[in-house]
């Protein structure tokens, strides 16, 4: 009856259905990349903060609260720049726009393109921290030996949970992959 099992007509149907799952799951692996980003953006977990400018809206300034914001600067291992905030710490009221400055200096004799990745701690406060202007929104190019002041304008959302009184904003500067500095760093 089934002495030639490979001619069972059901097999082709089973194979084609299973292959749909296989390709679907291969795609799903890649779909996890944007999904993961979307998920982190919505929930603000992973310290993800906005990487595009937020429209400045005038808000009620809540003068009853003082939020201490600390600024941290770090460099990825291969980045031959100096990078630091001009102010270590400021105190703001929620709703009050604030401008601070970071400084970056290219320590090499070649132009380098860098990209700063921001992060806010604690992670659950990340969605309440809004940057209206930031050097992290675009790539930064520093000519050989150039030093540059880079502003950040931010506002803390008055909806910030009551128990959060301190925030830390940190930036890590990376070399743009493929920029000519990549070869320099490996020498």
């Amino acid at each position, binding site marked *: *009856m*089934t*002495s030639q*099992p*490979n001619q*069972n007509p*059901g*097999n082709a149907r*089973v*194979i084609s259905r*299973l*292959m749909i*799952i*296989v*390709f*679907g*799951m*291969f*795609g*799903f*692996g*890649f779909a*996890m*990349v944007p999904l*993961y980003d979307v998920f982190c953006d919505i*929930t603000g*977990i*992973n*310290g993800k903060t906005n990487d595009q400018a937020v429209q400045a809206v005038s808000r009620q300034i809540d003068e009853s609260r003082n939020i201490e914001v600390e600024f941290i600067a770090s460099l*990825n291992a291969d980045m031959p720049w100096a990078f630091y905030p001009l102010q270590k710490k400021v105190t703001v009221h929620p709703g009050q726009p604030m401008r601070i400055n970071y400084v970056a200096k290219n320590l090499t004799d070649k132009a380098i393109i860098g*990209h700063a*990745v921001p992060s806010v701690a604690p*992670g*659950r406060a990340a969605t309440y921290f809004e940057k209206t202007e930031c050097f992290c929104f675009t790539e930064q190019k520093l000519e050989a030996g150039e030093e540059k002041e880079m502003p950040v304008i931010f506002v803390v959302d008055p909806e910030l949970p009551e128990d959060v009184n301190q925030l830390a904003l940190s930036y*890590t500067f*990376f*070399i*743009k*992959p*493929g920029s000519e500095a990549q070869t320099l760093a490996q020498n």
Partner: protein
Amino acid sequence: MSAVIEEHHEHHDHKPTGIGRWLFSTNHKDIGTMYLWFSFLMFFVGGAMALVIRAELFEPGLQLVEPEFFNQMTTLHGLIMVFGVIMPAFVGLANWQVPMMIGAPDMALPRMNNWSFWLLPGAFGILIASLIMSMMGMGSAPNFGWTFYAPLSTTYGPASTDYFIFSVHIMGISSIMGAINIIATIMNLRAPGMTYMKMPIFVWTWFITAYLLIAVMPVLAGVVTMMLTDRNFGTSFFNAAGGGDPVLFQHVFWFFGHPEVYIMILPAFGVVSQIVPTFARKKIFGYSSMVYATASIAFLSFIVWAHHMFTTGMPVAGELYFMYATMLIAIPTGVKVFNWVSTMWRGSMTFETPMLFAIGFIFLFTIGGFTGLMMCIAPADFQYHDTYFIVAHFHYVLATGAAFSIMGAVYFWIPKWTGNMYNETLGKWHFWLTTIGGNMVFFPMHFVGLAGMPRRIPDYSLQFAEFNALATVGAFIFGFSQLIFLYNVIKTTRGGEKATEKVWEGADGLEWTLPSPAPFHSFTTPPQVR
């Protein structure tokens, strides 16, 4: 009746001889045999690497190998044991047993079966070639651990990482084809009357495992593809400098990785569910609950992956979700363990080697299950993470769990495969030495792990010295007692006391209605299942 069958099959019952029999084989038994021998060979390769690791850890300080080589050993030991030993051994068992247990003549897709096996030696040839090149002084073999976390495997991976990626792609294709074949066989070739809820539990567990393979092996292929393009084609999936995220790697990897650990244990559950009723001389207790429990475990495996990542800085809500979801797995797993115990309850038990391995499995796997529960408690896991406690846990579930079930399965079915009984005395020696050695190597790891000894490091603090020395002695007992197993298997294939058709007094199932050794084509006329 049998004369009719022989006459009918005369023209295609001839086996090719020589190497062609194996290279071009489309026979489920020959392919199953090749899978099992391949797995056995890899077991000794991966085991030798484990002994290098344990020898280095015999005492504190660096003695035998360079730390770089140690890292390559831990990586390849893990990869070979997971992808080269446990998975092929279970596919080999499925090849041999599934057609016999459901009353089919062969697998549904015999040519694909040949291909899915013959991809494996290629895949592992590539992987092991990277180690050989490393030993000849040409770069390093993969050295980032079997979990190949980015950026260790992307930005900092050695050149041989691309070999590794290619090898994983090939073994993934092999597994997917094997899984499709098993599903097609089970869906289309069951004997008349063999409804789904009459299938032996081993067939059920493999049916569900095959779906897990189909769902997650493509995700593994995806993650290594992302690594490949990150390394060679300028993408930045896992590179923060280009806007990617290394933690994303862990999410995608463990989305594959957690179902993967059930791929390695569900067929083991199936094997134990065949052995225990046979030697307790009772029907399995709670057949349908066994099936539902297996399906529940498979479902839960998809929604708990981030319990491997409690220390990556997840928000509390995420930790709580993954902690509770993981705890849920204990329920269907508990159902299974209680069912096995209830099957043995008031049974007329005898303790032949397969039964010893099955009981050893139940006992030692449950220890591994309990440590798993300890680690799913997120705050406690901060202490256990990346220590030898983890190493103890997954060796209890894989070495004394999955590998025990495979050894039990070989003793259980080898009389059917070869027509000869194995040597019971040697089998018992093998079981007891393996059990004693296994517990000597893995049990002390709980203590050093809790005390903070990190995993994957070739050196350690002095206070861990005694337990590590004990573990190394145990590892050598464990390792060398496998030679008894090898000897026993070879001796059984060559001859010995003839096995009866039924082999075991309490045996129940279609495979035991075939003569021993089983004929080249299993059921040429489908048996009628009541």
